[in-house]
């Protein structure tokens, strides 16, 4: 390889790194006011008639941005998403950290699910969550399932350690249950 092309390659690499970093680290606060996610823009399935439509621009803007994803994590707690979905493991609502998506797992699908609600119990948050926060939450939900880059996904929070943190979500089989607490060991009934 000539040194010129080598330089070009390293420059290109640097460029990619730069872009990734800028995208990851940007803080933008204003977003758009409450609107509606146009259902027309949302694809629920993975099967397309003709050529697939391009994904909406929010995917890159939100999924690639650590600030947005971390804001999504905060709002996931604030807006009680965690009340039903726990920290991704599910409770009243289905788990979000597994691979199963009932209503589609793309960013747009998740946003649509939040806005419109789903018949089996997912409430509609129409007019309750401004668009930017909506995309932030959706991007965070994607991070639970390891669908955003590792360097963008959040780490642990300052609460009880119940998951390894979105950036370290393991792909290991579930651990066996029923292990007694260390402090209760050796303490007879």
């Amino acid at each position, binding site marked *: 390889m000539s040194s010129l092309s080598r330089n070009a390659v390293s420059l290109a690499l640097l460029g990619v790194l730069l872009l990734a970093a800028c995208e990851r680290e940007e803080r933008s606060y204003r977003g*758009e006011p409450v609107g509606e996610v146009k259902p027309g823009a949302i694809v629920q399935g993975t099967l397309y008639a003709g050529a697939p439509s391009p994904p909406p621009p929010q995917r890159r803007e939100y999924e690639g941005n650590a600030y947005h994803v971390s804001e999504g994590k905060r709002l996931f707690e604030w807006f009680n998403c965690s009340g039903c979905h726990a920290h991704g493991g599910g409770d009243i609502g289905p788990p979000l950290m597994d691979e199963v998506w009932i209503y589609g797992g793309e960013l747009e699908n998740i946003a649509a699910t939040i806005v419109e609600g789903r018949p089996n119990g997912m409430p509609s948050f129409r007019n309750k969550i*401004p668009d930017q926060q909506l995309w932030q939450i959706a991007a965070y939900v994607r991070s639970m399932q390891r669908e955003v880059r590792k360097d963008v996904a959040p780490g642990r929070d300052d609460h009880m350690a119940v998951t390894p943190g979105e950036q370290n979500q393991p792909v290991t089989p579930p651990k066996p249950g029923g292990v007694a607490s260390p402090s209760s060991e050796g303490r007879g009934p």
Partner: protein
Amino acid sequence: MRWPPAPWGRKGRVLPILVLAACSGPQSMLDPAGGQAARIGVMGWILLAGCAFVYAVVLLWLLWALARRHRWVEPGGVLPPQAGVERRLTNGLVAWVVGTVLILFAFVAASYAVDKSLTHLANREEVVVEVEGKQWWWTVRYPDDDPSRSITTANEIHLPVGVPVRVKLKAADVIHSLWIPNLHGKMDLIPGRDNELFLTADREGIFRGQCAEFCGLQHAHMALDVIVHSRAAFDAWKEAQLAPAPAPADEALARGQALFLTSACTMCHGIRGTPASASVAPDLTHLASRRSIAAGALPYNRGNLAGWIADPQRIKPGNHMPLVGVPPSDLQALVAYLDSLK
């Protein structure tokens, strides 16, 4: 805001040092309004006097050393130390060290005494206030043995004059620090730790406190108002705060309330007396009775409130209140309703 302009005015650019004595203000340690701040003030003056003396001695000694008639030496030559002079200088050094030690000892003693007296002031308490720091505002609670008489408000501490107050400090997210310079020094609010601060305000007035530990994007806009009133006025304020929000008095206000209850507002804010009971953002039950909006970012008035709701991220970029995008027609009704929450 509604504080009087600084005495030297916005235009008269007097040399700042001259107005040191006149540095009174709603957020200044130079204008103590409470027992603690006054004692610390005294400590400050003791330290300042001692240090000024030492500084003067050093500067005079330096001046003398530089300006005195020195021994002659040819260019490039070296002056050998002279035994007698060395001895005198050594004596001087010993005196110097002894002097330093004495002054420092006095400082330590004074500091300890003042610290002790601050603790002593803390021994009684009549009013308990819980302040919880959050990014980037303050929850203020007045717990009561009768829980139904406890009060929750935001970004505003009311105190009765002349009464010892225990301020319990908690942090909800990161470390903050409560600093009301006119009343006391600062105390940190640390997650997982309970701190407290004792205040006694000696005169009525309106003061300002601010977060003094860097806490993120809007650290600069995390202030609170401290209102010191007479005991009677304080009690009256408490009674007023206990009441739930009044029902809308007319059609327009009712529309405003409906807008509030059906919009994104209820995801974060609560208004007691309505179904809105969210608590991750300031309680709005008596919003219109407060002096400022957004933790001291803006003085409270209808115009500012409308501006704040219309675009909070322009006024306080990065704060947790999103751009909700209320249409102008609705905004007026919404603001009118919120403004009725006295």
